[in-house]
Every structure is written in C-alpha cells, then in structure tokens.
C-alpha cells in the first residue's frame, strides 16, 4: 500500500485516493482540426515508463482535490508531490526533487 502526501491534508494511506493516470496531458486546442491519428493519440496513447512517472491522484476520501505525484514505477518510491498548475520538479540523479522544473 502506498502512502501519499496530500498537499493539503498531509500523509494518508492509498485507499483514500483515486488514481488519475499520466499528468500533464494537454487537451488539444482545436480537436476538430486534428486528423484521426492525432486525436487517437490524445485519447489513447499514454506514457508507461519503467522508472519515474508523473501522475495525477485525487484525495477522494479527504479534501477531494487533485494533485500530481512523481513516483518510480519500479520501486514505488514517491519522489515529489506538487499541486495542480505547478511545474514538474526536476529529478536529480540522486532521485531527490530539485527546486525548479519545466512547466
């Protein structure tokens, strides 16, 4: 069982949360302008890395707010938790979250 740190409520156990899949997937500005391949890629294709993954969680049994988590999908280590709208932290070689990151 994972223990996640909700940015608003603090550390809680996994059953309080629901999973939201890959983070930072941006909805296309003008879906009508896309061809089938591009729209299919937006709807169905997701990263599935063996390693660091940026993903969304919602504190469903708590504050019901969404947030992002950087987690290693092999070790399940949570490397960073950050709020919606905040840039993804840069992960250092040491596996610790740095100060700044790309949006």
């Amino acid at each position: 069982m994972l223990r996640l740190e909700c940015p608003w409520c603090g550390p809680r156990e996994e059953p309080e949360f629901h999973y939201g899949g890959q983070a930072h997937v941006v909805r296309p500005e003008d879906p009508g302008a896309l061809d089938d391949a591009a729209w299919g890629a937006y709807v169905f294709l997701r990263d599935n890395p063996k390693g660091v993954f940026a993903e969304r969680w919602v504190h469903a049994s708590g504050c019901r707010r969404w947030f992002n988590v950087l987690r290693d999908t092999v070790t399940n280590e949570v490397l960073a938790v950050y709020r919606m709208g905040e840039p993804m932290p840069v992960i250092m070689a040491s596996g610790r979250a740095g100060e700044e990151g790309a949006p």
Partner: protein
Amino acid sequence: MELARVLFGRSTVARYSLWSLARNALSHQEDWPRQWRSPEPAEHYDVIIVGGGGHGLATAYYLAKEHGITRVAVLEKGWLGGGNTGRNTTIVRSNYLWDESAALYDKSLTLWEGLSRDLNYNVMLSQRGVLNLAHTLPDVRAGRRRVEANRLNGIDSEWVEPARIARICPILDISTSRRYPILGATWQARGGVARHDAVAWGYARAADARGVDILQTCEVTGIRRDRDGRVSGVETSRGPIGAPTVGIVAAGHTSVLAAMADVRLPIQTRPLQALVSEPIKPVIDCVVMSGAVHVYVSQSDKGELVIGAGIDAYNSYAQRGGFHVLERQIAALTELVPITARLRMMRAWAGIADICPDASPIIGATPVPGLYINGGWGTGGFKATPASGWLFAWTLAKGEPHPIAAPFSLDRFTTGALIDEHGAAGVAH
C-alpha cells in the same frame, strides 16, 4: 543424434508414452534427456521472438509447425514461463461478448482441447466448467446478453438459475438474504483450468524439437533498425542478433520494448495479484467468478484454493501489489463462500499486466516495418495462449494478419473500432 535430426527433422527428444515411462522406471527415472537444448545464439535468424512465456513459445512452435519457419529464436531475459505465465490463476474459457473476441478465444479453447496430444505433453487441461455469477439486475441482464451472444457464435454457454448453481457448486451461499445475493450465473461447461508451467514447458519442448533456439537469460536491450527504418535485429545481453522480423511477446514489458523502436502504445502496466490457501479436501470442482463482489476461485489438484484478486490502481512494474487489495478479495470470498472464513492463506504474488483501454489485446504490425507486437492481453492472457501463438505465427509468417487477428490491430485506436470486453474480462480495471 545429428543424423536422426536430419532424417526425422527433429532432435532426438524422447517421446513421452506409457512405454517410455515404463522403460525409464527401470533406470529410476534418471536417464530422461533434457526437454530442450540451451544453444549459443546464432548471428542471424529468420524470426526473433522476444519473450519466453507461453505466448512467445507458442508463437515459435506454430511458426515451425504450421509455416515451416524453423530459424527462429525465442529470447527470454529470465527463465521460461517465469513472468505472467507462472503467475496467473490458470483459468481457460471463451465466453466473451463480441464476435471478434468470441472467434479469438474459442479458437484458443479448440486448440486447448487437442493441445496435450499435439505437444505430446500433458498440460492437464481440466474442463470442469466456469460459473460467472450475477448479483444484481444489471449483472443478470449483462450475463444473459453474453450467453445469447455466445450461443449465436456457437460457443457453449448457458444461463443457470440459483437452484442449479447450488447443484454445480454447493459451497456457494445462494440464500437471498446476503448483501450480494446470487441471482443467476453464466455457465460454460467447456471452460476450466490448465497447468500453467506445463503449457510453457510443453511448447518449449515441442518448438525445440522442431529446431527453434530457446535462449534464456538473454535480455533484449535494444532494437536495431537499418537506414530505411526497417528492423534488422536486436541488441541483447548476449550480444547482437540479426533478424528481419521481430515479434514482441513480452507481457508486462510490451511498452518498454516498443519504446526501444520509438513506438508508443495505448498500454498501461498494472500489478495483478493472486493468492492460494492452505490445501484442503475437495470443496469446489468448477471455477467460480464474480465480477460484482469481485473474486474468482478454483481448487488446485493439491487442494489449495487459487484466488484471483483485482488490479492495483496505479502503473507499476514492481511485481507486487497492495495488501488492501488482497484484503478486499478475502472479504469477497468469505461473502460468497462462508466456509472459507477460517481458511489460512499460504502465498500471494503479483504479475504485471499490460492493459489496453478496451481490455482486448494488440496482435499485429507496428509502424516500424518488420516489428510486430502480440501484447496488451491485460488480466486474461493465459486462456488465449494457444490461439495467441497460432495467430501471431500466421501474422509473422505471412506479413499480414489472420482474419481472426485482424480486428485486434494497433490501428483500432485510430479508427475507433474498439473491442470493449471490460464486462467479460473478469477482472475489474
């Protein structure tokens, strides 16, 4: 030995029979030859299969048997059948809803029924029947619909009422006062279980006998492409190996391998757990599945109850899952079968399942010429092992999909022609 191989087109693997069993009894069963060779990798093959589980070995076997392609290597990073082939709950059935899936899984069940004889290897197929319980009115409607769809596709499937369920599986609590009363069930008598390890070993031995090289502890670390972007081979932990055709059959790592050739897939990888109880006397002689309370259970020949759990909520390659998922499974089992309340559990484990958005597999070509994928079987690939190999071998040999495999192409995620089998998949995800 080589002469025999030239003469008979196969290595001198002992054929299993009552006679060979009796003869080897005279030497205390100590003189059996190895079931397959462990050759050094050749520089070049006609086809490379990445993944030495049931599906990969079946693909190699049918490439050799049905299409006469024997310059084939199966590359396995660990040991044969050490991934999801060795981690499932061994259930075999074909009662899927849509025509496309019905054709696929019933092809598989038909192959299962002749498999032990075909491979000369006892895969211990036990067609003990599969019950799929309905606990709510929507469950009943979905189940009845699936039964009718199955029958239109020629699949043995019937709707059974609680009184008959009690005769099929007496330990189920069919009283109407339960929180999740059993209102009916689908019943597929041809369904059942098979011995998972034997499936991998049987296919490995039969493929090896036809000249396929099985290379264990040989991990693929890269996919080579020539200047035109065509596949030309793979990089491995035992050096580069060339081949114009590479098939990825690596459940749990389909995305990782496809990424080596810059192919993105609509697959998410999640842990799927199972557990077994202490062995007890026979109490259940069929397979019982319930989507609503969510548990599926059968009893092994050793007497253990084999219990399947749900998937964990998040992507993971860890081959382990959360304890709270197991706890829910046990709660569901004791609700369904109250006599298990004091049963002790012996072992729990997890496989990692590659799940597609429509709970159906991907069998076919990728945008990279020469690179093919057979994966995304999600939580229910074991039952499909024979057909998966048979259809994928056809696809690799002819460069075009078999009609049964054609609907399961990767481009359905562009055309939108999904094959939604979340209802029949058995495991909620």
